[in-house]
């Protein structure tokens, strides 16, 4: 799974078709990224990348870059452009 998939998941869930992700991005940077969207985002990432994000993992993810780092640690290869 690629950065393309990772980006598309965010665009779909957050309803931002032109969203460009950055490693430092957090919910505060996107107006549609509310708490419900966040849960939907976690579930969509779990489905797209076939992982289960447990509480301790979620607690340590501070931004989009941390999520990429975690997914790559699970065998994915998501590269920032």
């Amino acid at each position, binding site marked *: 799974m690629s950065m393309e998939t990772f980006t598309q998941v965010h665009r779909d869930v957050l309803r931002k078709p032109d969203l460009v992700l950055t490693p430092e991005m*957090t*919910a*505060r940077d996107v107006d549609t*990224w*509310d*708490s*419900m969207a*966040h*849960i*939907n*985002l*976690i*579930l969509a990432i*779990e*489905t797209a990348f076939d992982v289960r994000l447990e*509480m301790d993992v*979620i*607690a340590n*993810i*501070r*931004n989009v870059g941390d999520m990429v780092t975690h997914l790559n640690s699970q065998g994915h290869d998501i590269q920032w452009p």
Partner: protein
Amino acid sequence: MTTSPHLSELDALFNRKFPFMGKAIGDMSSLFGSRWQASFEQFLSKVMQSPDEKEKAVNGYVRFALDIMRLQKQFEKTGAYPEKSFDQARADVYDNAEYMQTAYLPGLLLSHFLWPHHYRQQLFFETAFLNIMRRQGAQRFLDCGTGTGYNACRILDTLPETTGRAFDISPHSKAHAEQQAEALGVGSRLTVDLQNLITDPPDETTDWLISIEVLEHLEEPVAFLKALRGLLNKEGKAFITAAINAAEADHITLYRSTDGVAEQILEAGFAIEQSHTAWAYAPEFDGQPIPQVAAFVVTSR
């Protein structure tokens, strides 16, 4: 939220521990304003005073919310709740100390303020039931399936002349409700009994009865509603609610609409005075089943 220190503390905890959920407080505050802030702050100041209590609640809320949203996504695909008996739900959830104490009860408790549909139900409860209890000088009420104990405690906290008796089958719910009542200073006015109301009906009837989000947890909700009907005096009023299209680990009966709940309430012999339905969030696509709560003020017929 400078005048709401407990709410600010909770907000900071969400941001520190689960930064992606950092908008949980701000979203609700924007939606419901100063009234929501004041009531949540007052509740936190009494029930979750310490940082440790707040941290446990936030951890539990996030775990609970994630668990049920995973089930909800599965439900969106299958259109049905996973098949489960009441005994299985009891073993998996109500008698499961670890899950009840660290996820289910703290998660549900915070959901009263953090889920829009639960908070809207609170507002309806206040205007359509609690205010009538106050005007008519209610003295005593029964809470059938108390869960967290939140609603029973709310009545006792609002109406100092009342005493209440709550029922549940979970010892963890009983302990949670009693602890909350003590924290609010209303413990001496609440009794919580471990009792199945269908197989072991209580020895008193009442003018005021509440049963909030219990029906969906049952295999035979109509039998339960008939038991409630038997507990309500002729001139009494009850506040009965159910969750619709809401998959949770212990939800057994699937209601697909407010009408589906209303039919069973009428079948049990109640008359409906008022009803209210609130949605958890807006649909993302046509036909998406959205969690809702349907609330009814009913009388005997």
